[in-house]
């Protein structure tokens, strides 16, 4: 009786997980299939699961669409520069805070933690960026969020738990300076946390659109997300083909629709390729984050 009930529960559990798997995968497969389908099939809603009238036209349209690649390049630069700055600052803040002997630890911790609880809000920050003359520059996007209190606390907790205090004391006896110890011992021991935090920062920068939207004016500085916003949400697609021929207009409409699906795939691909490699550190990162100091 008990055994059969348990077997049934295990079975139902597998069914549940399979249903879950399908729910998660379906939209993704659907979008991928759409990106390989013809414009006609898309507009009339013929695609349900598999591609209809398979074609690579949407990808051809994406590759020819100049502003996507400008956005790609910009996003890449912002993500790399922003992540390097953010990681250096985060680790620099986290290491002293992880040291028991660090005088002033309390005050610095409060200064950092308070930013998690209260912020000046949209307009004061906006005016600050304006007054600092950072408007329409990359710095308006990468600098304001560079030091995240949460990331600092996560890194600090990691250092606290993994760097043996005796090691630091021994190094100090041997005349090793704090910075040298940080560089030669702490950083090499911290690969997992650096990987997780970097991934979070990269994802945040790559996917953000609000800050670029309010701080950037010139289109040649637009990151990918703003270009995508025009294409996907505002349907402002510029195919550089003006014509009054209804046939051409209809064709362009189809092409525009196909372009949307192609851009989704092309823009999401980089993170999808990266995350499986860092995945094994997720649990660690999230666990450390949940045990705040």
């Amino acid at each position, binding site marked *: 009786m*008990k055994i059969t009930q*348990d077997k049934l529960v*295990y079975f139902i*559990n*597998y069914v549940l*997980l399979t249903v879950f798997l399908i729910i*998660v995968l379906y*939209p993704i497969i659907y979008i991928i299939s759409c990106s390989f389908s013809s414009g006609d099939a*898309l*507009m009339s*809603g013929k695609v349900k*699961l598999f591609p209809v009238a398979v074609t690579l036209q949407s990808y051809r349209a994406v590759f020819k669409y100049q502003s996507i690649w400008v956005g790609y390049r910009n996003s890449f630069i912002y993500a790399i520069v922003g992540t390097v700055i953010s990681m250096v600052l985060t680790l*620099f*803040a986290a*290491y002293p805070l992880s040291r*028991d*002997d*660090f*005088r*002033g630890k309390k005050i610095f911790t409060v*200064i*950092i*933690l308070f930013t998690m*609880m*209260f912020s*000046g*809000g*949209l*307009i*004061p*920050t*906006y*005016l*600050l960026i304006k007054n600092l003359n950072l408007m329409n520059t990359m710095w308006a996007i990468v600098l304001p969020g*560079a*030091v995240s209190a949460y990331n*600092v606390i996560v890194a600090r907790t990691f250092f606290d738990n993994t760097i043996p205090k005796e090691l630091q*004391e021994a190094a100090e006896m041997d005349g090793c300076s*704090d*910075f040298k110890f940080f560089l030669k011992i702490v950083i090499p021991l911290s690969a997992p946390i650096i990987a997780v935090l970097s991934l979070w920062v990269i*994802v945040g920068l*790559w*996917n953000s*659109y*609000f800050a670029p939207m309010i701080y950037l004016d010139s289109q040649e500085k637009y990151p990918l*997300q703003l270009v*995508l*916003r025009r294409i*996907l*949400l505002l349907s402002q697609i510029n195919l550089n083909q003006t014509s009054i021929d209804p046939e051409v207009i209809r064709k362009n409409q189809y092409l525009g629709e196909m372009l949307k699906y192609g851009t*989704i795939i092309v*823009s999401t691909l980089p*993170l*999808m390729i990266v*995350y499986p490699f860092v*995945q094994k550190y997720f*649990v660690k990162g*999230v*666990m450390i984050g949940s045990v705040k*100091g």
Partner: protein
Amino acid sequence: MAGKSKDTKIQVGHRKSFGQYFRAHWQLYAMIAPPIIMLLIFAYAPMYGVILAFKDYKVSLGIWNSPWADEHGLKNFIRFFSNYNFKECLRNTIVLSVYSMLVSMPCSIILALSLNYAKNLAFKKTVQMVSYCPYFISTIVFVGIINMIFDNRSGAIGSFLFNRFGINVLGNASLFSSLYVWSGVWQGVGFGAIIYIAALAGVDQEQHEAAIIDGATLLQRIWYVDIPAIIPTAVIMLILNMGGTLNIGYEKILAMQNQNNVAMSEVISTYAYKVSLVSTFPDFSYSTAISLFQSLVGLILILVTNKIVDKLSGQGFM
């Protein structure tokens, strides 16, 4: 005072003066200086800027020289509280964040439990990896996908619902909150489950073995062994989330907003954005007052919930 406290077990006996300590360890201060300076500029300077909320901001005069607002500087707040938008924004904000909190947490717990009892390791790993995938889709792309799939003419699900039941998902304001919350579950449940998976991994296996010997079924073991084990984590998550009730992620809402759903999708932060940076007659002071109200409520909620966590588990976060 600090000299006697618990954290100085090494230093007792040869406690150096701060000057000596600083000379020996100035590098630590050199390291922490840049991040602290960044925070002073980008987090604390805007906090000073909130005085805008009590002023009548004139671009030509700047923050400091602009005149104080009427009604003892509270004009902007009074205007917001008496505005017909206020109730609507507050209601929408609370509905969206409470709804999503109540749905996403049980979903994460159920997924964690399910994964915990999936015996086939390869299958389990696959499900887990796939479950993280939506987390990496950007807000813009995500909202784009929602719009495509639920389009009542060309979208696979949208056209089905429209043709079968006459439901226009995207055009129906009353469906906005559900669309927002359940799409959020789709995107975040895999990540949300991680913390519970970790909590389940910490369950004492002996308890399970004892329960099996006592003839407990699997469901009974889940109910009497696993659930109690993850309740502390769940309570803390719930309480921490409550602190952020008003600070709902507006990027997604802003991207999902359209003419049809604006009545249900206007939240405090999107409203503050619209009256300042979008409006043809931008009112920076008014917007700052709205944000300040939101931040203060958030701050109070965090401090109160921190007290509660402290009382419940003895581990507040400060």
